């Protein structure tokens, strides 16, 4: 299991397609809000955001604003967990919901990166 995670961590970061359609995006956002936001929100008690800020830096603290996460990496962490974060069971977050979540996060991060680029211009 740990070897699998390390393999994913070592994988090159590549761009991923945005959410296929609005229905998937809605499902992905719903999955994010049900399973992720409690720890990865913007408020001052969001333990995942706080810890990512400490360990990766503030620019990588918020999941929806990161552009360095591959879909494969997101899926691996969701299922296997990482450090304090435990993995999520396939009964509570199905394979289809995980796919939608990955699409949602990668689309959100792409939009965030585009916004930053526009601001830089």
């Amino acid at each position, binding site marked *: *299991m740990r070897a699998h995670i390390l393999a994913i961590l070592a994988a090159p970061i590549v761009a991923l397609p945005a959410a296929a359609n609005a229905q998937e995006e809605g499902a992905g956002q719903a999955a994010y809000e049900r399973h992720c936001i409690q*720890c990865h929100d913007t408020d001052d008690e969001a333990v995942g955001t*706080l810890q990512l800020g*400490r360990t990766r830096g503030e620019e990588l603290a918020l999941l929806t604003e990161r552009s360095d996460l591959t879909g494969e990496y997101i899926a691996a962490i969701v299922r*296997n967990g990482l*450090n304090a974060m435990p993995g999520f*069971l*396939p*009964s*509570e977050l199905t394979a289809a919901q995980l796919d939608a979540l990955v699409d949602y996060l990668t689309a959100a991060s792409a939009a965030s990166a585009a916004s930053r680029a526009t601001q830089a211009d």
Partner: protein
Amino acid sequence: MADYLPPGVSEEVMAEALERFRQVVGSEWVFTGDDSIPYDDPYPVTNDETLYRPHGAVAPASTEEVQGIVQVANEFGIPLWPVSRGKNFAYGGAAPVLSGSIVLDLNRMNRILEVNEDFGYALLEPGVSYYDLYNYIQERGLRLWLDVPDPGWGSVVGNALDHGVGYTPYGDHFGMQCGMEVVLGTGEAVRTGMGAMPGNNTWQLFKYGFGPYVDGMFSQSNFGIVTKMGIWLMPEPPGYRPYMITFEREEDIEQVIEILRPLKVGMVIQNAATVRNLVLDAAISETKSRYYSGDGPIPDSVARDIMADQEIGMWNFCGALYGPPPVMDTLWTVIRDSFSAVPGARFYFEEDRTRRPDILIHRAETMRGIPKLTEFGFLNWNGGGGHVGFSPVSPITGADAIRQYEMVSGRVREYGFDYMGLMAIGWRDLHHVAVIVYDRNSPDERTRIDELFKILVAEAAAEGYGEYRTHIGYMDEIAATYNWNDNALMKMHEKIKDALDPNGIVAPGKSGIWPAHLRNTDSA
């Protein structure tokens, strides 16, 4: 990943059983191979990777499907490990005691069957989380409060069945349970209490029904699979005022608990009160490295720095007042005057706290039943994320509190960890919950945790302190300490186990109770 098999079950038999499980629930709800990795214990306390490993999981959506799975398990001799949501993380998560078991994952049974505002109760399936129930109540504007444990994503049913606690006046979760439906190891469904009478309308109102009261038999047990449960909910009070009292010295815990006992037993303190130590509270919002870069537990000088930085004490008592304002005012006068006897005690309401995040601001939400995950912050204290709870019970006396604190904190620090603990005061008991946080990726720390935990169990038992709940890795050790009269209680458990689950397919090893065919074997 390796495919672990239970004792006496071949690959061929398991494959046939899995096929039959697929026929019961649909192939998409049977998980094996890499799909079953999330069912492993995320915070292992052993370096033996063959322990506590499921073969796979099956996720039914109804009581009838649970019965179908139990029937197949009996036919093929497959051990099932039921979990409600699988989030009992300080105690093993969804992982089974016996490797090769199939996790019976009840997440899909997540229906809120009834919420009654007038009487204040809910009837739930085991897959309902605290968040689910909270959102249901909020969306409908019902004037009911939950009582939540620290992590809000767990199962309401599962937490009560494992004797979990919360922080409102309804903090004794199993004490607030009323009526259940259980699938026995034979596959037969039973309703307890008033639920046994067809057409009765007091299943969630009167616990005891007629004849022996059996609900407790299905908590922390492997006598059956709970598929529905009633839980009482607190009516929204007319007023709510959370507070925190801080104490400066380690030894203050003795006097604090002496003051707490009459206030709690006499119900002046209304809620399930907790006195938490410095590091546990500090770790909610900060990591150790912010204050200390040395090895081992923090020295006293650093503890003082943390107290000043976060404006908290060596011990912090968070409580709350509930009721009409004049009642709250009167209760607060008694509480404040009582604790003023402790030199250096400081008193805070929410408006007195300016730092963010802040422990009282956070606990104020928990003590009014808002589910959260903020407490997971303390897992980041060392950066490695692992944690395990050691939870002995004692009387509510200062002498017991200081004795437990010295025993446990001394050993924890001797093994190189910081002491993180709380004293939770129930109706007549003191739960001392010491959480040991470690690096789950470090073989050395896992080795030390395992050795430390076994010492703590033995030393506590020698002083007459028994654990109320434990990790799957220590259930045999804890059960062995409850051995009065030549293990009479365990012998009785085994007789019940053999009667209700004759093939021993429900949760072998849960709470140290093994089925006949596995007793006194290498598996047990």
